[in-house]
């Protein structure tokens, strides 16, 4: 039976290199996740305001970011800004910018959805009980909204981790690129390594995202 990549994987530091590549991908996604959760929450709250101008601007931002494939956004930031402003952004920085823009848009919509899903009678009952506006926000609305929000935002995290695989296309050396390099380097000794190596990458992504998805599912069920 020809070698399908297992021996290549165990040769030298190859597996450690692949894990390092996954680390690069995860680092980009986690930095973007942190920024997105923060900014997304802020924008989401802004979106529930009644000011028509801020609403229109946020809506436009949200719709544009959401309808464009993330890959197009990556190209716009990575190649477009170089041309338009002469910036020389590194691949990592461009991807953090893009995923933060995208994650913020998605997160703000989740926050808006969670806040508006609290029925009006909750606000009214809180007012009837004599709670001030701030009190009703902190003690009545937020606890309920957060419960709806947390499973959804955990799901967003897995989506962002998966989307990070795209950074390969703007030249960031992450797990897929490392896998490509390893396969190329061993092309003579084991020409069939691509099967095993790419399968390993697939499984690595799976084991990075699966526990997070399970957590989201569990919380969703528990807090329903």
């Amino acid at each position, binding site marked *: 039976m020809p070698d399908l990549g297992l021996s290549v994987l165990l040769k030298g530091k190859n597996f450690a290199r692949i894990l390092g590549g996954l680390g690069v991908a995860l680092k980009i996604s986690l930095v973007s996740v942190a920024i997105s959760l923060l900014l997304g929450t802020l924008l989401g709250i802004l979106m529930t305001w009644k000011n028509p101008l801020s609403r229109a601007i946020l809506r436009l931002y949200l719709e544009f970011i959401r*309808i*464009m*494939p993330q890959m197009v956004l990556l190209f*716009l930031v990575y190649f477009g800004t170089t041309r338009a402003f002469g910036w020389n952004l590194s691949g990592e920085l461009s991807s953090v910018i893009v995923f933060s823009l995208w994650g913020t848009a998605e997160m703000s919509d989740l926050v808006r959805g969670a806040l508006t899903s609290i029925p009006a009678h909750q606000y009214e009952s809180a007012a009837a009980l004599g709670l001030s506006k701030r009190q009703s926000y902190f003690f009545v609305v937020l606890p309920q909204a957060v419960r709806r929000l947390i499973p959804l935002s955990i799901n967003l995290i897995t989506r962002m981790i*998966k989307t990070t695989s795209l950074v390969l296309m703007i030249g960031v050396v992450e797990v*897929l690129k490392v896998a490509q390099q390893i396969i190329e380097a061993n092309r003579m000794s084991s*020409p069939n390594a691509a099967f095993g190596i790419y399968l390993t*990458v697939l499984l690595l992504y*799976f084991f990075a995202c699966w526990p997070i998805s399970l957590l989201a599912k569990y919380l969703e069920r528990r807090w329903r």
Partner: protein
Amino acid sequence: MNWTVIRQYLPLYRKAAGLTVRIGLLGIAAAILIGLFCTAVQRSRIPVFRQLVSAYIELSRNTPLLVQLFFLYYGLPKIGVPTNAVACGIAGLAFLGGSYMAEAFRSGVEAIDIIQEESAYSLGLSRGQTLRYVIFPQAFSVSVPAFVANVIFLLKETSVFSAISLMDLMFTAKDLIGLYYKTTESLFLLVVFYLLILLPISLLGTLLERRTRHAGFGT
């Protein structure tokens, strides 16, 4: 912005957009079939198949399409499975989309109270009739928003096909930037063409959601 350049590029982009849409639609159609099949298997509760379907759904939902495509396109030929880029693109999209569609359909089916089914039977409807006249119309209207979101999501995902050298919009843009350095024009056309493909579908989806919402039934 140079309009002559844009006019020159237009046919290239039009061709690429055709490919994007064609592969996208074929992949989505296959994904719908896989989704229906998975939902049917999960509802039928056949022991081993049900676990297999669950494993498939978890695997496909927790891995990126790009990595799936790399495995399909560069990995599978090594164990003797012949592949080509178009087939891989469609298969990858179907593999990814199948699980998303299955989840959308499942949420629709699960939203229907068991009492609906029981009432249909007690009214003398057969199993097939119950499915066709009672379960399906209700499940459909519940699934529509998730379904529309999935269609848009999958069409967007087609942008990674350039990685397996399919000449789609992304590929064309990257190619033209590399060849002629007309970055602004290339990116402008890229955005315009994706908007042309995705905006109508997004609007149609909103319309469809609105039209099917009237099938209200309790809460």
